């Protein structure tokens, strides 16, 4: 049982999606996250454990490697793809309520900014850690965030910006959200954003990498 969890985690960490996938070269011809997860479910392993001991472990490992500059976006995307392929087999258990989500995370790229790489990475990693993610997409304004927060009381909010020209919109959106729903915890990130900027605009948390956001959320719900 533990061995299978370990293999699933390994596939996620190294971005091995399925049997047909050519990447990574040294795992060519082997089963990937897709087949192994299906096998685990078919054999009656508890879905919650498949998630916790398999998928989440793999995502966390790649998240830490990303933070340490050992891997970059391409490798993380491969891991995320392996993760989401495997998640398909777990979906029915989430829908039936057999497996509980840790919390809800609402994320979007701020108004004016249409770049979504960073946001998608965070979204995938947070999802991979067992949260429900509500992705509002790109070019999201304060009102849209507030509506989503009201629909999902107690959710955490993530704001992303890739451009120096649009990160200023973060300040406005943070102020709007804090005025409408004062207790909302807001995480910010993106290439031009910094801890200093976070302080200036009164957001709650800044992380320079997605794993930092995952860690913050896990600490918050613990």
């Amino acid at each position, binding site marked *: 049982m533990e061995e299978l969890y370990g293999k699933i985690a390994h596939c996620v960490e190294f971005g091995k999606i399925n049997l047909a996938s050519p990447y990574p070269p040294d795992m060519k011809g082997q089963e990937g996250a897709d087949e192994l997860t299906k096998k685990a479910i078919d054999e009656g392993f508890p879905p919650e454990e498949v998630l916790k001991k398999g998928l989440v472990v793999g995502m966390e490992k790649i998240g830490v490697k990303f933070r340490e500059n050992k891997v*970059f976006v*391409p490798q993380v995307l491969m891991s995320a793809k392996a993760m989401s392929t495997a998640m398909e087999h777990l979906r029915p258990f989430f829908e039936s309520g057999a497996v509980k989500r840790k919390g809800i995370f609402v994320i979007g790229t701020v108004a*004016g900014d*249409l770049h979504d790489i960073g946001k998608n990475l965070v979204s995938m990693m947070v999802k991979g850690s067992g949260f429900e993610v509500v992705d509002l997409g790109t070019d999201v304004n304060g009102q849209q965030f507030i509506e989503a927060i009201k629909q999902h009381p107690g959710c955490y909010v993530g704001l992303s910006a890739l451009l120096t020209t649009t990160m*200023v919109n973060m300040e406005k959106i943070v102020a709007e959200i804090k005025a409408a729903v004062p207790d909302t915890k807001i995480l910010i990130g993106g*290439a031009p954003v*910094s801890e200093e900027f976070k302080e200036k605009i009164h957001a709650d948390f800044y992380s320079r990498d997605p794993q930092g956001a995952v860690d913050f959320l896990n600490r918050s719900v613990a």
Partner: protein
Amino acid sequence: MTGRALVKQAFQLRKAERIPWVPFVGVHGARLIGATATAYLQSADLLFQGVSKAIELYQPDGIPVVFDLQMEAEILGCKLAWSDHNPPAVVSHPLLEGKTLADMQIPDKNAGRIKLTLEATRRLRNAHPDVALYGLITGPFTLALHLLGTDIFMKMLEDPDSMTALLQFTNEVGKHMASYYIEAGCDIVAVVDPMTSQIDPMSFETFVTPCATGLFEHIRQQGALSSFFVCGHAQQNIEAMCGCKPDNISIDENIPLDYVKEVALKNDLSFGGNIKLTVVMLMGTPNDVQENALECMDMGGNKGFILAPGCDMPMDTPIENVKAVTGLVHDPYRQEVVRAMEKEQSKLDLLNLKDYGQTDRVVVDVITLDSESCAPCQYMVEAVKKVTPHFEGLVEWREHAIKKLEAVTFMSSLMVKNIPTICIDGKIAFVSQIPPRQELIAAIQKRINEKLKLKLKSKKGELFIFGKTAEECQDLIANVKRATAELGQQMEIKMITDPHQLAIFGITETPAAILAEYKVKSTGTNPSVEIIKEWVKNVY
């Protein structure tokens, strides 16, 4: 030397007399002329006006014609979402929508917005022959990402051959764009490839290096200079970027300037950047901007460094903040002032100067950088020096050159921000401008009058009458009483006949009188030693 020559000098790693300043004015130019970003980027006239206005306001040594990484993508079929406050953004990726690389052609110089941009370039070249013009082109990796979307990242791993073909095409587009800009009069072609910050050095060397190296070689062959711009956390790739052999590397605040300096100079490349765009330029004060810019200048040095913001300046960057950089770059005095303030201010214990200026004389403090090396300071000191004789010893003046820590402490304690400044009895009186003689005299006279009034109100005294016997003192005491009565004042009189006391005061012949004046020097505070010294000096 013209700014254009200064920039070229820095690119060629020759020691410069001054660090060149290149504000990355993109859609900020639209703001300067009251246009929207949307209109601005689609009009040669507006581009010309906006950049000209920026040149007038910011006196740059070099400036980009336009900062828009969507121009090539739009022509190649990406849909854009326009915004009035930002550059447009790419919202669709043609290679994901059924188009193939074979369907795409290299844009010619009349395609899309290239035509109007080149027209603006030519007009700017004619109108501003002394400013270096930067032509910005979309880097091969970023353009490939526009065309393919984020699938590009997985393609690198799953299908490296098609990735290489795509990058060869986008690089070819870059070569053509570079030629267009050079022909229209740009001195420097900047290859802006921010998305490379997302990949590791090995992927960079595998995919980006082969094409980018060719691109920079192409620019060199056309007789122009080149810069490789990156923004974001791209520290891991700086070495690899240098390996592509551009003339210059430009980075933003995510990468420490000292690191880039080290790597660039080791590779014989010039480098630039690094004024913080948002927390400082957009949200800070002109003082913050000058401190940050000076930090960059001191770190960058005058060989090979170009002072610039990290990236495209946000549209609403306050004009005063950008001008603050101009003021600093062109004014060595200002640099020394900011440097002195920055170095010392953090560790200062400010003096309590509430009771400063309570001596009989009026004290005029001139706060300078150093009157020997700063001309405005010298003239201000001379102006003060000349008027003091007018007051016949009533006025004392001092210079505080802030190259010394005590002077910085004093300056900060008086809340003086500019050099030179004249303070009269601890109050700021004249800032930066040297006052005309009559104004200076009037200001000092006003203070003397104030003091006189205070003096009359607060003075109290005591008269000691010394004698060998009480009888011997009586006549003198009677005269003192009469004198005070005639003046309508009261004065405490003490008679001292103790021979021991007489000896202490050094009195040998009696009767004698000693007048002691009491004056309130401070209330409710603990004046500093410096201040008390002033009181003491007044007595001796």
